[in-house]
């Protein structure tokens, strides 16, 4: 009960600041509004720290990981994706996408059993729709909560107040994998297993994006601003689920482009 109250308070505090703008207007009332970088100096310091950690630690590990046989890397990625279903499914339900919740439950059952704890993506071979991760930050966005200020978390990287609130929900009861590992009374799971799964997820992501990040860094005049823009764009398309949607829906706002012809 205390946990539930804590969760409620955190959500209220964070989402209210995400909804409120400096002029008191609601985020929702302004289409394609810029996400404010309220803590820019602090964010840039966090970013510099993360860049240092990346160069000294994450990138070399990711490069080593890339040298593993492809089957090992694919299997690891599959296991991480399979575990993430435990967060995706409740979020499918919270977003009202019951059909997708059933599909992802089927995917989780099939991959955990026939797919040997998720190592083999049997569901994909069976023709299940492409897996799209969902999280509590996306659900809050879907419910109309604005992103709030942009923040760069030490080690964890880019986020917004809304998405950070979403991550708190995981710890406060929203992530069955976290609870089974940390609080579960069984001999197979532990805090270390949970941490290992998170670290592996991070290494897998970094390894899959080695060239993209290098390329972006090399061709950016302000790498911090480029990553911020990409993070915000990525979250927007994930919340609206428009990554591979109807083009006319994706490109419905032409204001910026039309304006340059009337300069």
């Amino acid at each position, binding site marked *: 009960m205390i946990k539930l109250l804590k969760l409620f308070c955190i959500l209220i505090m964070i989402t209210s600041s995400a909804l409120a703008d400096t002029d008191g207007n609601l985020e929702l009332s302004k289409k394609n509004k810029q996400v404010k970088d309220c803590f820019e100096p602090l964010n840039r310091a966090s970013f510099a720290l993360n860049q240092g950690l990346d160069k000294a630690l994450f990138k070399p590990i990711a490069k080593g990981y890339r040298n593993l046989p492809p089957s090992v890397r694919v299997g690891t990625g599959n296991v991480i994706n399979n575990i993430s279903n435990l967060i995706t499914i409740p979020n499918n339900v919270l977003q009202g996408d019951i059909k997708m919740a059933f599909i992802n439950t089927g995917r989780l059952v099939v991959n955990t059993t026939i797919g040997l704890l998720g190592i083999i993506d049997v569901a994909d071979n069976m023709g299940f729709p492409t897996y799209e991760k969902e999280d509590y930050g996306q659900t809050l966005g879907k419910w109309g909560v604005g992103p709030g200020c942009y923040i760069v978390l030490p080690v964890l990287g880019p986020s917004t107040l809304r998405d950070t609130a979403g991550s708190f929900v995981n710890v406060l009861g929203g992530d069955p994998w976290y609870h089974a590992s940390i609080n579960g009374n069984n001999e197979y799971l532990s805090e270390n297993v949970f941490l290992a799964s998170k670290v592996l997820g991070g290494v897998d992501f970094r390894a899959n994006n080695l060239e993209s990040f290098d390329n972006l860094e090399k*061709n950016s005049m302000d790498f911090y601003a480029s990553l911020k823009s990409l993070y915000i764009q990525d979250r927007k398309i994930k919340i609206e689920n428009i990554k591979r949607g109807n083009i006319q829906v994706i490109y419905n706002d032409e204001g910026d482009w039309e304006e340059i012809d009337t300069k």
Partner: protein
Amino acid sequence: MKKKFFFILFSVFLIIGPNNAFTIEPDVFVQSTVNRASQILSKNISKEEKIKELRSIAMETVDINGVAYYSLGSARKNLDKNQKKKYLELFESYFLKSFSSRLAEYTNPQIEVKEKVFLNANYTIVSSILIGTSERPEVKIDWRIYTKNPDNPLIRDLIIEGLSLARTQKEEFASILNSNNNDIDVLFKSLEEFSKN
């Protein structure tokens, strides 16, 4: 009667013919552009030579001035004539360097054009797929094609898995300006330094 018919036909050809004879469909334009780029990237030549050839394709197929104005956002309204001229020159060098060195990292990319969607008289979105390999997954790339002059379509943006390169660039420029009291000279200096390095 026959003479009259041929006269009308000839007149129609004269009026319509020259205007439409060289109209290029945006999807055909994209496919031919990527084929040209792909040919260069698969050539057994040095990276510098590849960059040089890619730059010439970019000069022909990208609306560099349009992208330049878009990237500057509302700040373009505050520029005087000389500043605009200087900005366009600096942006062109910056863009060509950034664009060609980004592309030069790929070897023989296979891009398949899927569909085109007409947004309005000025823009058509061409949807394509960068075919996946054992090293990387399939990537969806949308091309924003500026079609105001249908005889000469031009690329204005690349949207990779929903992420717009032009928008990212615009926000990068805005960040540089915001951090420096909207001093356009700081942006000019950054563009200059990027092109030199």
